[in-house]
């Protein structure tokens, strides 16, 4: 009796397995960054409404996790497209290649700004990237002027820069697994870090130490991991007017009555300042397409066309309504042509 039950279950399992594997996938499968997720999903939805294709399935796995899945091979059980809030790394290209994923098409879709905000009930902060680095880095240059590094001694913003208010340094931000945190470290902290000549000199001499110094966030309680949920950070800022929070521009735009973006190097984070790159803390957003799947899984070429159309990513496209900052027109048309002809990634240019 028991044997029969087990045998029956096993048979049912294998049967369903084989029948499911035989049925071709008829929807596009997208994985990757949670920052690009809100934009990819809008396009997916519009695409399914406007065409006869099924709605693409968009998963939010994080940039690194998405690329790992994407590079795990070709075939129906692997995703067709992965979103990334940073550029693909050489190691990931190699991983892809070793699993038979040879031709990858890179599409940059626009920019995202990272803001440092506080509650509207508090005074708006005006910072430089150097202030941000000094306030949040694990190790900072010795305040006595000697070219050595010491554990971060600063307690208040005034200690960092006498023109700032004498408020305790308290910053709520995403955890180390988040792409937003990576970008914040790279753009804001490293930007301030290399204003110290002796650290900048380290870059060519000892890149590893340089990166460790510039990207390490202090762990003595001044920087608080507030989880991946940006809405939560906004709520916590409201409850604690002394704290600052790190999150994406689209959350600032949606909660402009509750929080205000700090001015960084004289620039307020607005749609315009991020678009013309005068606001220093912004990063490019990408997605990557597996060329081998185009024409096998229905609708990939059409999806690309929708994503790279003016009505989606243009200056007044629907993606800008969701908080994405568009690229200049010339860049858009070049990338759109690339996407149409499916020109694969050849070699990785330096990050721009």
């Amino acid at each position, binding site marked *: 009796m028991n044997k029969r039950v087990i045998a029956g279950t096993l048979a049912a399992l294998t049967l369903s397995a084989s029948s499911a594997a035989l049925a071709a996938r008829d929807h596009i499968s997208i994985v990757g960054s949670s920052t690009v997720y809100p934009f990819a999903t*809008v396009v997916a939805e519009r695409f399914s409404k406007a065409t006869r294709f*099924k709605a693409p399935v968009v998963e939010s796995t994080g940039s690194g996790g998405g690329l790992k899945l994407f590079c795990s091979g070709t075939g129906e059980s692997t995703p067709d497209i992965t979103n990334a809030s940073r550029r693909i790394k050489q190691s990931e290209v190699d991983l892809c290649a070793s699993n038979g994923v040879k031709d990858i098409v890179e599409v940059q879709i626009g920019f995202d700004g990272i803001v440092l905000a506080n509650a509207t009930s508090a005074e708006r902060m005006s910072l430089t990237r150097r202030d941000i680095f000094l306030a949040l880095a694990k190790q900072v240059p010795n305040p006595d002027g000697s070219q050595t590094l010491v554990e971060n001694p600063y307690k208040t913003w005034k200690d960092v820069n006498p023109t700032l208010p004498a408020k305790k340094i308290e910053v709520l931000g995403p955890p180390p697994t988040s792409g937003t945190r990576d970008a914040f470290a790279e753009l804001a902290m490293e930007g301030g870090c290399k204003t110290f000549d002796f650290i900048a000199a380290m870059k060519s001499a000892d890149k590893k130490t340089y990166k460790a110094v510039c990207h390490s966030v202090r762990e003595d309680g001044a920087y608080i991991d507030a989880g991946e949920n940006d809405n939560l950070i906004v709520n916590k800022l409201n409850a604690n007017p002394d704290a600052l929070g790190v999150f994406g521009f689209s959350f600032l735009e949606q909660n402009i009555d509750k929080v205000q973006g700090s001015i960084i190097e004289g620039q307020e984070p607005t749609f315009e300042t991020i678009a013309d790159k005068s606001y220093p803390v912004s990063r490019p957003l990408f997605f990557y397409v597996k060329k081998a799947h185009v024409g096998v899984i229905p609708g990939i070429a059409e999806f690309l066309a929708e994503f790279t159309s003016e009505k989606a990513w243009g200056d007044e496209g629907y993606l800008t309504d969701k908080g994405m900052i568009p690229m200049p027109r010339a860049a858009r048309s070049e990338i759109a042509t690339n996407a149409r002809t499916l020109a694969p990634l050849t070699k990785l240019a330096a990050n721009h």
Partner: protein
Amino acid sequence: MTKSHALRNQEKVRSRIEQNLKRRYRKEKIFRGFGIASIVFGLLCVAVLLTDIIYKGHGAFFQHYLQLEVQYDPETLGIEQVDESALALANFDGVIKDAMKARFPEARDRRARRELYSIPSTDAPFALRDRLQQAPQLLGERETIWVMVDDDVDAFIKSLDEIEGGFRGRVSERKAGWLMSLYESGELQNRFNTQFFTSGDSREPEQAGIKAALVGSALTLLVTLALSFPIGVAAAVYLEEFAPKNRWTDLIEVNINNLAAVPSIVFGLLGLAIFINFFELPRSAPLIGGLVLTLMTLPTIIISSRAAIKAVPPSIREAAMGMGASRIQVVFHHVLPLAMPGMLTGAIIGLAQALGETAPLLMIGMVAFIVDVPTGITDPATVLPVQIFLWADSPERAFIEKTSAAIMVLLAFLITMNLGAVWLRKKLERRW
């Protein structure tokens, strides 16, 4: 002399007993007090939670609609007759824009027009398309219809009671003026939001619905129930009634108890390795979700089923044996029916746990944006807790109320499931 001594002694004993008694009563009182206090505290927490959720979420069941006077002008639409291919290409957007322009002729420059056009939801052209498909004779005619408004507009109107002047967000001064005039003339109305229950997820809060997640949860749980209940009960019956007591069965027992305490994400990783990478089942499907959740709920079901079987008095087994029943007959005719209510309780606890899981589903691709309502167990799907998580993480303000509304739907689903189980248990229960 001896008498009075005895009397004194008696009194002494009584007074001591009385003292003791007082202390014992006091102890009981304190214990009861603590019991009541903890229950009150628990109820208070639940009440606070529910009020908060209902207060935040009730708005999601209502949505503002805008009255529009549209003309299905063949010229604007760019079609001559109503058929499938023509409707797919027709410019319904233009019809909506014309209607908005006619209502507010003062909006002349590009910026103003853009603001004006952003009042109706992006779903409005599709609503018009469906309407024309239903009633082709309307081509060329005028009609007054109600269309959904954009989430920014909806949030603005809904906040009018709470915030002085309303939550402006991305609504400009000029747009707010238009909206107020529409609101005061009754052209903006609050209606029950049926779309919330009839459509899948959307990135536009006003169009987002819970149905895809609800159906996904139901399909996933169905697979879980269909697999975990028979397997769990079979395993429990074998271990309890047939298996010899030796080191192997001890080892299995220890392992089952350990598995019940394994973090659920581990089962997700197992599912990714076995079902997706080895068996090549489709990602994001309720089939895999059900399989993974089966692995997760099996220990719970086995443990509670074994407890239920153990609770069947041995006299019943012995009586059946005495009447000449075989062991299989004893189990299936006597033990199982009596243990069934207890097994069902275990299954329900396991399923309720499975209903709230998101962690194991992350690895197998069910934490995903799903627009189409799934129709089978191999279609891509998501589940209710994942939908709550995704909405809670969205930047748009209007998703806050959707999140709370989705929590209410999840609770309703859970309560229905539990009530069904209670009813079933009552029906099957036998007393001896």
